[in-house]
């Protein structure tokens, strides 16, 4: 159980799946987590992300497929023989043992006699040196969380699995712990696989995010890539907010596709469209709310040429400090969202005002229109 004993320490899932009777929790799945990376499995509850994690840990037996850690096939190994440790949801600290013994648990089970130095160092790393002789229930949520991390990390696992590790913490503490975990990961250089339903958490912490939905990986990539270039409506709606418009392919001009939506025309770079585009076919056009500029209808003439535009009427606006969020009632989409930075606020932009929404075509993305346009919206609202 040494760290990095072979050249490659990647986690490799090959055709792995899990079924419970007639219910398929995880469809056959191939996934490689590069050594040393911070990898997030993101999805709503019941999407199969925790099941996937538990199959890596050995707590769940895959119905098919294999799990490799580096060159070693660990599919048939029980959890206590895998060089993998888990930070459990709500921590699962042993209530009958004090903090020191909780952290020392893994070392002792592996027959290591002198654990004192290691445990003390580890408690120092998570800033809990003073609490060693307390019982878990005497600590605060944030402290318990750090004990759970220390208890897993002390074993120098090849991979650290984190199952919603911050779910029980309040917002402020969660932000703090996100940075803390990121720091620890950089410091120890161990592969982290992090399961979460919080898209902000996943984007803040991970190098690579796999968005899961209905037992499948919808899309995998860096946070920025997923955000700017979603391939499915689920990803577009689950990560942040997207305005999706149904449009019809009209023509092509160079690398761009020209679309008809409502009465107007929209331009979409072909490279940013994940759906097949045949003339006359339908496509979903998406744009993020912060990419859009609002101009009062009276000033429509001042908008530069070459930008995508849509006209509408402000239905609602809410001031939230750094930005103002508008809901626009337009012909192509009943509630178009626009986030405007509060730099030069136009006093005329109040509910009821006629406006033009415009954005650079390069910020437009295109999705397959055969999908549910609202996929991923409810899930996020429920969280």
């Amino acid at each position, binding site marked *: 159980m040494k760290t990095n004993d072979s050249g490659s320490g990647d986690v490799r899932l090959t055709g792995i799946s899990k079924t419970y009777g007639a219910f398929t929790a995880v469809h056959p799945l191939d996934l490689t987590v590069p050594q040393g990376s911070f990898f997030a499995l993101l999805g709503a509850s019941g999407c199969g992300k925790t099941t996937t994690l538990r199959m890596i840990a*050995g707590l769940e037996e895959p119905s098919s497929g294999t799990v490799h850690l580096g060159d070693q096939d660990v599919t048939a190994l029980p959890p206590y023989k895998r060089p993998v440790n888990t930070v459990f949801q709500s921590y699962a600290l*042993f209530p009958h043992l004090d903090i020191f013994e909780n952290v020392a648990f893994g070392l002792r*089970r592996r027959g290591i006699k002198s654990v004192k130095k290691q445990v003390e160092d580890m408690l120092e790393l998570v800033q809990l040196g003073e609490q060693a002789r307390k019982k878990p229930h*005497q600590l605060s949520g944030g402290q318990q969380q750090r004990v759970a991390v220390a208890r897993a990390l002390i074993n120098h696992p090849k991979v650290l699995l984190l199952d919603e590790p911050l779910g029980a913490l309040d917002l402020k503490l969660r932000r703090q712990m996100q940075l803390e975990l990121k720091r620890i990961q950089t410091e120890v250089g161990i592969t982290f696989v992090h399961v979460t339903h919080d898209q902000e958490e996943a984007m803040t912490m991970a190098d690579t995010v796999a968005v899961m939905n209905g037992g499948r990986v919808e899309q995998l990539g860096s946070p920025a890539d997923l955000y700017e270039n979603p391939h499915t409506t689920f990803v577009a709606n689950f990560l942040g907010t997207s305005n999706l418009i149904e449009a019809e392919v009209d023509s092509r001009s160079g690398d761009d596709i020209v679309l008809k939506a409502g009465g107007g025309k929209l331009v979409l770079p072909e490279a940013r469209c994940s759906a097949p585009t045949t003339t006359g076919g339908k496509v979903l056009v998406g744009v993020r709310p912060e990419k859009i500029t609002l101009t009062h209808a009276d000033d429509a003439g001042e908008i530069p040429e070459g930008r995508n535009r849509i006209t509408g009427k402000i239905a609602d606006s809410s001031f939230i400090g750094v930005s103002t969020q508008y809901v626009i009632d337009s012909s192509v989409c009943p509630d178009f969202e626009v986030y405007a930075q509060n730099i030069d606020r136009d006093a005329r932009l109040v509910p009821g005002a006629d406006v033009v929404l415009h954005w650079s075509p390069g910020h437009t993305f295109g999705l397959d229109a055969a999908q549910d346009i609202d996929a991923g919206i409810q899930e996020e609202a429920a969280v």
Partner: protein
Amino acid sequence: MPFVNWLKRHFVVIAGLLTLAYLLLPNIVVTVFSFNKPKGRFNYEWQQFSTDAWKDPCGVAGLCGSLSLSLQIAVWATLGATLLGTMIAFALVRYRFRARGAVNSLIFLPMAMPEVVMAASLLTLFLNLGAQLGFWTILIAHIMFCLSFVVTAVKARVMSMDPRLEQAAQDLYAGPAQTFLRVTLPIAAPGIAAGALLAFALSFDDFIITNFNAGSTVTFPMFVWGSAQRGTPVQINVIGTTMFLVAVLLVLTSMIISSRRTRQKA
């Protein structure tokens, strides 16, 4: 009417304390009459203060023998019922298996059955098998009726236990045996202890089932029963009082120790 108001506000407290008094009155009588010096064979009327019985608690033929027999049976019945009951409780909570409903009914029924019915039917079995009534038949009967109570007590505790704790142990290199010894058992211990205590109390105090299946063997409750017909020696009260005091003291000390321990750690 301040008094009426006071009465209204404290009605529950007064009624509750009166019930408590009703519960404790017989124990007070038992204790007081352990210092009695009765005239006849029966210790029902107060005559004269005396500590004779306390000085010679075993002074009645067969009394201490029956007490020691009852204690032995209670210890073995507790061990047996706790072991078997804990196993069943774990199976019920932790595993899936067929015929769960039938298993649950089989465990529930002994608790929903009047003792006299179980006693009589068990005796029918022993008579049919030609079994020699005595220590072993009593022990068998006691394990039988204590079992369900242990299952209920342990089950409640195991059910409230987070299964992730055992998974965490496995994740931290503890094999199945280690996980059970280091995590499952210590956490389930209060439930098992509660079940064992209940089994001990039930077994030690059982009369009806024992009376049917004891043959000529005499346990402590049977000795008391017999003495109710032949004459009640004061020593019975001495033992009853002692048991009461020992129980209260044991519980009090354990509570003081545990509260002191939590205070130190906090």
